[in-house]
């Protein structure tokens, strides 16, 4: 159970926040977005942080999940849950087909290929007006119902996203602490050595790539019903970069770090709004400074800073004693 201590803590926090601050905008509205971002960040973290495969196009799978569900429910009258399942199926297919050629690439080339993929899918969303509503977006998406209860309040969606996040974190933690998780970390550490240990690295990479895509697709499916209106702007290159930033901010091979990073990056713009016109500039500056001085991520970086500060105090104390 020690394994899941962190998850229990996270669950407690997720449950307590709306109880302690019931009408707080930051909890119920921004919080829902933060939870959604956290789901996406955890999925990307499995791919990037553990398996070491850069992806600058993760928003694409988020988009496929969202648009599939939105189109099937608005234009064809499908049941929302069935539509989300269909979105998962389509995402699974696309990610599998794309994974074989893409995952042969490494480093910058992989980054650019995923970038290209993400942009192409976004352009399809914009151009396919007949189906997707084009740049003006798609509205009138019905909300979800769970066991007869319609999710039409902020608080209802908070619980839905919160439960999904806890489920996804549980899945991620399970995978990491297993033969498959070790195989992923091994191929990140040294692909050739991993092969020599009998790990089919191609299959492993494909597996985690598709899994991450499926989780993103689920998030997309939930998102479109929560928002009731979606547009291609939510699924573009910039959002993919935001997701990568969340993962990196939190510290790459850390599931909780990804959640942490998602939290920070969701609340940061709320804080930056104060700076109005300076907002974009400051965001860029923060990114650069963060990567230059704390490349291992905020989570780990702050831990290290704290340790170093503690050590300095300790040696200062000893120094005083020694004098």
């Amino acid at each position, binding site marked *: 159970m020690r394994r899941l201590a962190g998850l229990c803590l996270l669950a407690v926090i997720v449950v307590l926040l709306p109880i302690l601050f019931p009408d707080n905008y930051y909890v119920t509205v921004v919080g829902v977005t933060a939870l959604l971002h956290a789901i996406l960040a955890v999925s990307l973290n499995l791919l990037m942080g553990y398996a070491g495969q850069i992806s600058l196009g993760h928003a694409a799978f988020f988009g496929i999940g969202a648009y599939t569900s939105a189109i099937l429910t608005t234009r064809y009258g499908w049941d929302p849950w069935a539509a989300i399942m269909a979105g998962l199926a389509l995402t699974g297919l696309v990610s599998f087909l794309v994974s074989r050629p*893409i995952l042969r690439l490494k480093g910058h*080339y992989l*980054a650019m290929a995923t970038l*290209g993929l993400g942009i192409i899918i976004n352009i399809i969303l914009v151009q396919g007006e007949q189906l997707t509503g084009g740049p003006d977006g798609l509205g009138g998406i019905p909300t979800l119902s769970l066991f007869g209860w319609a999710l039409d309040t902020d608080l209802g969606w908070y619980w839905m996203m919160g439960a999904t996040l806890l489920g996804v974190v549980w899945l991620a933690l399970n995978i990491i602490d297993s033969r498959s998780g070790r195989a992923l970390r091994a191929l990140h550490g040294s692909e050739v050595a991993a092969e020599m240990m009998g790990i089919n690295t191609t299959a492993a990479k494909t597996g985690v790539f598709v899994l991450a895509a499926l989780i993103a697709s689920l998030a997309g499916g939930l998102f479109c019903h929560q928002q009731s209106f979606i547009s291609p702007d939510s699924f573009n290159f910039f959002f993919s970069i935001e997701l990568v930033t969340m993962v*990196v901010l939190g510290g790459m091979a850390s599931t909780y770090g990804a959640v942490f990073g998602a939290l920070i990056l969701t609340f940061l713009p709320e804080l930056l709004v104060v700076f109005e016109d300076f907002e974009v500039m400051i*965001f*860029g500056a923060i*990114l*650069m400074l963060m990567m230059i001085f704390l*490349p291992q991520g905020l989570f780990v970086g702050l831990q290290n800073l704290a340790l170093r500060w503690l050590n300095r105090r300790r040696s200062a104390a000893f120094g005083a004693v020694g004098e």
Partner: protein
Amino acid sequence: MFDQILQFVLTGVTVGATYALVALGFAIIYNASDVVNFAQGEFVMMGAMSAIAMSAGDGLPIFLSLPLAVLVTIGVGILLQKFAIAPARGASVVTTIIITIGASIFLRGVALLLWGKSIFAMPHFSGEQPIHIGKATLLPQSLWVMGGAAFLVLGVHWFFNHTTHGKAILACSCNRTAAKLVGINVGMMMLIAYGLSAFLGAMAGILVTPITFTSYDAGVMLGLKGFSAAILGGFGNPMGAVAGGILLGLIESLAAGLISSGYKDAIGFIILLLVLFFRPSGLFGKATSERV
């Protein structure tokens, strides 16, 4: 039909020349420092925007603001190297990618702050009277773009193959330590490489903006497509990058004209994916392998 194609070719080569300059800038930085500079497109934007800003209203005359804008952009490039890239030497691929993306966002933020979201125009260098070639038309500015790009490309080629500084930069990219050992000031070479790259970007900006207009986020797509062009030509081969740029411009223009203009932007990225899937070393690049 032929005239239509000719028109597309002319447009394509003009746009392609811009891509070529951006791609060349990418290649130079990548060769010198193994960094993929996502802020490359922002150099183009800065060059154009600062020129426009300096000569706006009762500002400087255009023949002063153009070179000043280029200098400003070179300065930005050098600052980028010194304060964002150099401190992070040895960082992982993801880290450097995010640093340059952060830089691109930062520069866009500065532009947004200074000049807002408006679209800006720049006067054509030698008038807007179209030149007729058969039934196709060509703006005089297009000739400036193509000619300017050709001149710059030749200049860069001469620089890298016939000057000591140029060869020194190439040496740094092959083996940094060895370069230091023979007395090359690697830090200075890096600054020159980034400055040169920014110079090319700024020139692309002031050459093409009279035709395309500019705004604070004009650099984004340009940067990405320039990158695609560099990969198409063979990452690491500067002249290949140039060829890739022109080729990309042509393909984009022909596809937009003959197939569909909505998906025009997708062309560049589809080509990118195809190249990466089937021939990652590009048209003219060298394949490398890893020693185990």
